[in-house]
């Protein structure tokens, strides 16, 4: 707590702070309100399940939801092993001044900041062209895996570091091999952290557009294989808003679905994080 506002300076400062936060709150609520206002009326179960018609002006987003899930699925399946392995390596086998560990962490920190359009370029060059996958769900998923890796590794590493030393000491005293310690003791204890990391990663991937524009393509019908091109939710919003006259109502509806999913995802992540911290608290 700070001392009370007394002087003219104090009151001016308070007025500036309160009015700027008021302005921001108004802006955010305006944005969200506008979104709900325009998009809610278009929503219905059929919207979620049927296919887009008339270039998306009518119909629904069924195949698009499927494509999005497939892209996210590929992303997670590829990112997970590498992410988990790297996190375990960093948490269990490196100290703070370990050169190799610092190098890896440093490069991941930088990777986390790289803009998504640059990932799009990279994904296009590597997956679509060099590996010959073309515009496909696979390319999109692989590109997103690269984007999501840093955040996955960071949260997983932290969850391993949060495990207290007693567990490792007891396991060593019992003569367990490190593989057993890691696999049977540490890994199960770190699972909530892994879940939170994955969920946050999925959230980030779902919001991505620029990385997918030229890796997973634009086609909006139901994909038949992973090598088919597929359209993600965010791309659909972009296409309807910019390229399709009269596409705004459905764009809004899709946006409501996307933001809704993201909110659910973040709530799930914080719920798990809360339960995890209460589980990990030792009885005093």
């Amino acid at each position, binding site marked *: 707590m700070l001392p009370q506002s007394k002087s003219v300076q104090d009151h001016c400062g308070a007025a500036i702070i309160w009015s700027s936060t008021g302005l921001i709150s108004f802006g955010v609520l305006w944005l969200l309100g506008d979104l709900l206002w325009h998009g809610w009326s278009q929503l219905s179960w059929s919207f979620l399940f049927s296919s887009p018609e008339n270039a998306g002006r009518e119909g629904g987003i069924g195949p698009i939801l499927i494509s999005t899930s497939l892209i996210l699925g590929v992303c997670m399946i590829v990112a997970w092993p590498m992410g988990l392995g790297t996190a375990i390596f960093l948490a269990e086998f490196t100290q703070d001044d370990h050169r190799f560990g610092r190098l890896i962490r440093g*490069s991941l920190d930088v990777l986390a900041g790289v803009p998504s*359009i640059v990932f*799009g370029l990279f994904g296009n060059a590597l997956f679509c062209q060099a590996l010959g996958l073309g515009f496909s769900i696979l390319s999109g998923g692989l590109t997103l895996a690269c984007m999501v890796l840093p955040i996955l590794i960071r949260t997983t590493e932290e969850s391993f570091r949060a495990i207290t030393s007693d567990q490792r000491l007891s396991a060593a005293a019992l003569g367990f091999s490190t593989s057993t310690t890691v696999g049977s003791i540490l890994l199960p204890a770190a699972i909530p952290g892994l879940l939170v990391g994955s969920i946050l990663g999925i959230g980030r991937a779902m919001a991505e557009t620029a990385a997918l524009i030229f890796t997973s393509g634009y086609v909006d019908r139901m994909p038949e294989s992973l090598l088919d091109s597929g359209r993600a939710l*965010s791309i659909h919003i972009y296409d309807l808003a*910019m390229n399709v006259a009269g596409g705004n109502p459905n764009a809004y509806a899709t946006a409501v679905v996307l933001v809704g999913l*993201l909110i659910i995802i973040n709530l799930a992540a914080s719920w798990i994080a809360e339960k995890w911290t209460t589980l990990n608290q030792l009885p005093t």
Partner: protein
Amino acid sequence: MILSTNNISSHFHSDQFLLWSLRFLALMAGSLLLLVVVFLVHEAWPAFQQIGLTSFFTDADWAPTEKLYLLTPMLWGTLWATLGAIMLAAPIGILSALFIQYCAPPFLARGYRRLIELLSGIPSVVFGLWGLVVLVPLIARWQPPGPSLLAGILILFLMILPTITLVVQASLAQIPVSFIHNATALGLSRWSMIRRVILPTAKAGIFTGIFLGVARALGETMAILMVCGNVVQTPSHLFDPIRTLTANIALEMAYALGNHRSTLFVSGLLLMGMVVVFVMMAEGLRHREIYAATK
């Protein structure tokens, strides 16, 4: 911290296998950045060879069909949009952080913080959609045409505000209570304390937030694409439509071939370079403890 390295025993083959496979996976993850740079350079190389670095800044215009590859209008667009957004977001972000940490009753502080977190979670396409449908027509009524640098600045401002607010608020929360008690005992008024003790102490956090915000603004594509008009010109005032480097790549990549495509990769490298500089400055600050209360 107990390390498992020293516990690797040669008795357990599984341990050796584990260590080496983990090392391999970590190496793959670590070399991702290198891979990205290598591929970008590889794709950009033809442009460097055949067009040359100086042409990007001295050609007459951006007209790939006529072999003109001037990047400076896009560069200016990116820089002006980012600068405008930061000049709005930095002070307001700091004020918002002060609000959450000191000025609001706990329930309002929590609520406003949730609101900011919500804002940070909104995808850029959704910002772009709202900007396109609501903001741009508003600006058009004030001063046509509507899609403009101003629209880009306002949207970017909303997008980077949460970054700055949350980072600054986290660093304010770390200031020890004893600082506040000491400053109060010295008779400092509330605003004096904020100006003279609290903000200087939180300097590192403030700059970290600003650098991260700049990095995000530089790299933003979709929202900017949707509200800025995408006209290739160096902006001369707020209401001019502009095209940023990111929007340029997004718009033209689909059909670019040969040197045109390589040039887009060049602009991608340029972008990445700028962003990486700011990210590294932010990370560098994060590792320094500015306000240790005692040695």
